[in-house]
Structures are given as structure tokens and as C-alpha cells.
């Protein structure tokens, strides 16, 4: 370390790394690494490490995990309709532990979305979007949307029957959206899934969108460094140092989280359903769970009305910090009731959407 320290400003690198979470405070890059680390470790933190305040950092770690597993998958994957399914078979059938990497990547995507959505619910309930945290909220909404897009674009890649027809169901709902529908239609390139769909979605899936997500995470952490951590409403609470409390608790939670991903990957694996065939419908196929409420809405209302309604909901959701004009700390009764009603509606629509299975 000393040898490097004479030649490289390691503290600057440490400072850069901690920009993506962990140490929420400035790091003096003029000081040697050990002192800077010790300083950062001693810094007292609020009890945010405890449930449910850890959803953000968990989501970030799962995102990194998706990056690593995705990298391994990209070694073998071939994004063309002729080769995609075979390369998927090579990964999941012929490559040592390939099935395992694929299943973890697949389950990781569901868990990432679940974590980001839960985090939004948490923000909403605690009204953690109020000034000066508007950006944290907006970034949170965008992150959830991008994670959903990542999951959708990733789910089509195996190019098997379930992937193909599930994607068709997903596309049905997204096409109804006023602006996003047109953009999505442009990305898909029409109503048929043509031969260039896979390379297009693949490049977005592994490069453009992950970079955007990383940039949003960076923006989120940079915001936190500026405005500090949310301490909840009048919740002073005891403060603990970053190490050992924060880091060891975080490690504990992450070990449990990976236990969950791993178990889901082994016990509930997705099955190969044969190469995609546009001329043979795959019966009983559903869109992914996060698209079910949207499908429920287009079942209940005419498509374009449902599309406009969904779009308005997104806009209202993103603009929540500016719509909530209640002064002072206010009560969690209103935000809690709103949340329960909204979640009830979403669950009901999801149930209606589930009904399309027939």
C-alpha cells in the first residue's frame, strides 16, 4: 500500500468509490489512505441501516450483482433470432454452472425491481420526497422505470416461446402509453418482432440503460452527500459509527439477500420452452408480474384511455414532491392512506391482469 501510496493518490480512489454509497460524507483526499478510511469508518451514522432504510443500498448492490452475472452471460449469448435460443441453451445446458448464473440474473432482476418499488413506497409513506429531497424521489422513480425496462429487454433475450409471447403481452400494454408507447414501438420496430430487435434490445440492455442506471445512482449518492441522510420525522435516535455497525449489518443483510436469490434460482428455476415461434401461440402466457396491473387496466378500460391514465399516474408520481404542499411535518395518516388505496388498486388491477391467462 505504501509503495502505491507514494505513486497514486489512493485516498482519491477511495473517495471515488465511496461516492457510490457506503461513506456518506466528504473524504479529505490530502490525507493518507489509512487515516481517511479510519475517519470515514468512525463517522457516526443514523440508524438508517435498519429496515426499511436499507432498500436503496440493497438495490444498488443487486444492480452491481446483475452487472457481474450479466457479464458472464454475455460471454456466450448471441443476439440474433437464429442463434439466440441456441446460445441460451449453451449457457443454461452446456456451460458449467451457466444455468445457475442465468437463474440468478433472472431472479436478480425481479428482486431489483421489487426493492426499488418498495423503496418508493417507503419514501412515499415517510414523505421523504419533500424539499430538499425532490431529486432523490425523481431519481428513485426513474430508477424503478429503467429497472423495469431492463427486465423487459432482458426477458426477450432467451428467445424461447415464453419469452417471445410474454414480451408480446408486455408490448400490448406499453403500446397504449401516449409517448412511451411510440418510443417503445420505435425500439421494437413495429408489431412484429423482427430480426434486428434482439441486437437493438441487447445493446440497450447491456450498455446504454445500465450506464444510465449507474449515472442515476451516482446522482442519488451525490445528492445524499450534499443534503445528508433522511432521519425520518423528528427521529433523532442514537447514531452508530460506519464500522463496525453499519458495514457488518449491511453485510448480514446482503448475505441473507443472496441466500434468497440463490434459493429462488435453484428451487424455482424458469424452464426452457422451446425456440420462439411466431406462428405457434404459447398458451396461458402472462406478462411479467410488474406488468400485470397495466394489463388489468387495459382490460378494464379502453386501451387509449388506460394509456393516458397510466401516463398521468407516472407524471403525478414523479411530480409528487411538487404536488404535496402540506406544510410542516404533517401526518403520515394521509400519505399512509393514499399508499394503501394506491397499492390496493394496483393489486386489484394485477389480479384482473392475471385473469388474461384464461
Amino acid at each position, binding site marked *: 500500500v505504501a509503495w502505491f501510496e507514494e505513486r497514486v493518490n489512493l485516498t482519491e480512489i477511495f473517495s471515488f468509490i465511496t461516492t457510490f454509497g457506503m461513506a456518506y460524507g466528504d473524504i479529505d483526499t490530502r490525507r493518507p489512505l489509512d487515516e481517511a478510511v479510519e475517519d470515514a469508518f468512525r463517522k457516526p451514522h443514523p440508524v438508517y441501516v435498519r429496515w426499511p432504510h436499507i432498500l436503496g443500498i440493497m438495490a444498488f448492490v443487486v444492480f452491481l450483482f446483475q452487472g457481474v452475472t450479466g457479464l458472464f452471460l454475455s460471454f456466450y449469448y448471441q443476439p440474433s433470432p437464429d442463434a439466440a435460443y441456441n446460445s441460451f*441453451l449453451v449457457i*443454461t*445446458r*452446456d456451460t458449467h454452472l451457466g444455468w445457475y448464473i442465468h437463474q440468478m440474473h433472472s431472479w436478480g432482476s425481479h428482486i431489483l425491481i421489487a426493492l426499488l418499488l418498495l423503496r418508493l413506497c417507503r419514501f412515499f409513506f415517510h414523505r421523504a420526497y419533500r424539499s430538499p429531497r425532490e431529486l432523490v424521489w425523481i431519481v428513485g422513480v426513474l430508477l424503478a422505470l429503467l429497472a423495469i425496462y431492463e427486465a423487459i429487454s432482458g426477458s426477450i433475450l432467451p428467445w424461447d416461446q415464453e419469452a417471445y409471447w410474454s414480451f408480446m403481452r408486455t408490448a400490448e400494454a406499453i403500446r397504449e402509453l401516449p409517448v412511451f408507447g411510440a418510443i417503445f414501438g420505435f425500439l421494437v420496430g413495429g408489431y412484429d418482432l423482427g430480426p434486428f430487435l434482439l441486437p437493438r434490445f441487447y445493446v440497450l440492455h447491456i450498455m446504454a440503460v445500465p450506464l444510465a442506471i449507474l449515472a442515476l445512482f451516482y446522482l442519488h449518492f451525490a445528492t445524499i452527500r450534499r443534503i445528508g441522510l433522511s432521519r425520518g420525522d423528528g427521529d433523532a435516535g442514537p447514531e452508530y459509527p460506519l464500522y*463496525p*455497525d453499519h458495514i*457488518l*449489518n449491511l*453485510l*448480514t443483510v446482503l*448475505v*441473507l439477500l443472496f*441466500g434468497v436469490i*440463490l*434459493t429462488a434460482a*435453484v*428451487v424455482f*428455476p424458469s*424452464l*426452457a*420452452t*422451446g425456440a420462439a415461434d411466431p406462428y405457434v401461440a404459447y398458451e396461458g402466457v402472462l406478462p411479467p408480474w410488474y406488468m400485470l396491473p397495466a394489463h388489468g387496466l387495459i382490460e378494464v378500460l379502453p386501451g387509449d384511455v388506460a394509456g393516458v391514465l397510466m401516463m398521468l399516474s407516472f407524471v403525478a408520481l414523479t411530480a409528487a414532491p411538487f404536488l404535496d404542499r402540506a406544510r410542516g411535518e404533517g401526518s403520515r395518516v394521509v400519505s399512509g392512506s393514499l399508499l394503501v388505496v394506491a397499492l390496493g388498486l394496483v393489486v386489484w388491477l394485477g389480479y384482473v391482469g392475471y385473469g388474461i391467462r384464461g
Partner: protein
Amino acid sequence: MRSVERSFLPLLAALLATPGDALGNAGDCARCHSEVAVQHRNSAHAFEDLTCVDCHGGDATSTDVDTAHRGLRPAVPRAEIPEFCGGCHADPVAMAAFGLPADQLALYQISGHGRALAAGDLTAAVCTDCHGVHDIYGVADPASATQARNVASSDCGQCHAGSGAGTDVLGDYEGSVHHAAVQQGDMEAPSCVHCHGSHGAAPPGIGTVNRVCGQCHSETREAFRHSPHSEGIVAAGEPQCAACHENHRVGPATADLWSACTDCHDESSDAMRTGQKILTLMQQTEDEMVRARQSTAEARAVPLDVRDYEARLDLAASYLAKARPRTHSLDPESVEELTRKARSIGEQVQADVAGELYVLEGRDLVVLFLWLYIVVTVAALQLYRRSLR
């Protein structure tokens, strides 16, 4: 203005000329006989430049009724239609250019239809009843009544349909596997003409049914000819294959067909015991194949590499496919020679797949151990955290 007229007048002339042109090569005949001209326009005859005048005489270039109809042949009497069409279609030189046979008239004359007509029965089918008059299409044209999909309903079925038992030939045929295959696009599957002939149409005799069916079902015929049924059925006055399978309403060859055995054989007879033995062999093998296919489908979804299993099952399926016609030999040993091979492949594939799936179940066990490790790690982390505080 003059230039406008110059450009306008040819256009007007072109517009006026359009109806005649649109009606093909009927020339000025179309001016009065437009309905017929429309029928003729897309026909195979029009495609080969045959005009109204070639069959009817007259002058197609004149719009004067008298001139146009000068030399017009009268309508061909029904009894003379075959000879009239044969004027060209029985001429080998004329037909050679079109790759058409020239023996249709000769065949027609020896057919049931031709002989009935010669005997003065004017209800007997003539060329135009099946081929149409002016709207004659090639046999492969989907619009043609003689096309394989249409021939039963549009041609033969016009006369050979009825409501009484055994007389509704069309209805019986439409309930057959042959008709279903034709409608699904299998042009090799038989319509009426495959068994009865087209121009030389005649019903096969009792002793010749196996030859007709054997044109496609050659292995079945081979087995049948060496079976006790070969002579026994004819001796009993039954029409060979059709005795069990029906003639027009040929159903799927399932196990239900074996109930037909009791029509001739006593339930406790040796013949029935032999039949039951063959039936059991076939059913056991088919069930084994279904189970083997299910197990490979299960393995394919994992996904496991099932290409080898599928290749082996394809081989087993070919043994089973060979065994099916061999059941007509009524020789259980000969059938078992094939079903034994198919069944043993099916059993072996199931055992191999089950072995591979059993190994995979070990993954769940690994997860159990992993959770032990996770619990220990979590406990260690928390204990370490407390010790540091």
C-alpha cells in the same frame, strides 16, 4: 384547345375499349355475351388463347349480329359432349404441347359414366358436369372443381350424395381421415378419383379392394396378403380392407377398430385371442412411447440435452410405425418383433432421463447446506459486531 382534343380523344377511345379488353380474348362476342365472357376470361382455355370462335364458330371481329353469327355451330347435344371435347383432347399431337394425356375420351368410354351414356342414360356424367363449360380451370387451380380439395364436394358429390344409409357417399367420405388429410393440404391423400379413377371411373370389385388401398398402404397390403384374412374375407363376401375400415367413411385406425372383430368372430374364439394379443402389444408400446416422450419433454424444459433421447425415440417410433401395418398379418410374433424393440428403447430412455433428473435434485440439497453456511455467517458477523462494540 386542339391539343387538348388530341390528347383527350385517344383517352376516350381507350376507356371505351376497356370492357372488351377486360373480358379477355372473347373479342366482340363479349359485347353481347358478357356473362359468358367473364366466365371464360380466367379459364385455362383463355390462358391458352382459345377463343369463342374455336369452339362455337362465327366471327368474333364483327359487331353486326348476322355477320358475327354466320357459321355459328349449334349448342352441342349432351350425348355428344365427350366426342366434342375429344376433338382436341383425344388428339395426342394437339395435347402434346400442353403435356396433357390424350386418353381421357377412351377412358371415359369404358367408365361407368361413359357406358351409361352410351346406353342412352342422359343423366350420366359428361365432361362439362365436372370441368364446367366456359369456366374450365387446370386441375391444380384452387378455383377448379377438379382440384383435390374440391373434387368430392363439387364434382362427384353432385350426384353421389344422398340421405339414405349407404347412399350418402359424399357424407361418408367427408367423415373420413382421407378427407381430413386432403383439407389440411395433403394433396397425396385420396379423394374420390384416387381410388375410382377420374375419366375411367369405376368401383373396385370385392377382390380388388386391397390393390386399390395398397397403392398407398403397400406394407399393410403385403401383411394382409399373407394373413388368414386374405382369402377368408373374400370367401365371406366382404370387401377386404373395407370390411373393417369402411369404404368411404375410413376412420382413424385406433384400438376402437378392434371391436369390428366381433362382427365375424366369436368372443371366445382363438382368432379373438390372437387379436387381443396383438392389440395388447400395440397399446403397451404406444403407452410406453407416450411416457418416454413426456419424460424427454420434462428434461428438455430443465433444459437438458435430449437430442440423443429424441433420436432414439424417433427410431422407436419408426419400429412402431412398421408394427402398425404388420398387425394385418395377424401374427403376434411378427408384431412383437418390432414392438419389443420400440418398447425397450422407450423404457431405456425413461430410465436414462430419470437418472439425469435425479442428479439435478441434488441441487436442492446444496441449497440446504448453503443455508446452514448462511446462518453461520450471519451469526458470526453479528457476534463479531457486538464484540467490537
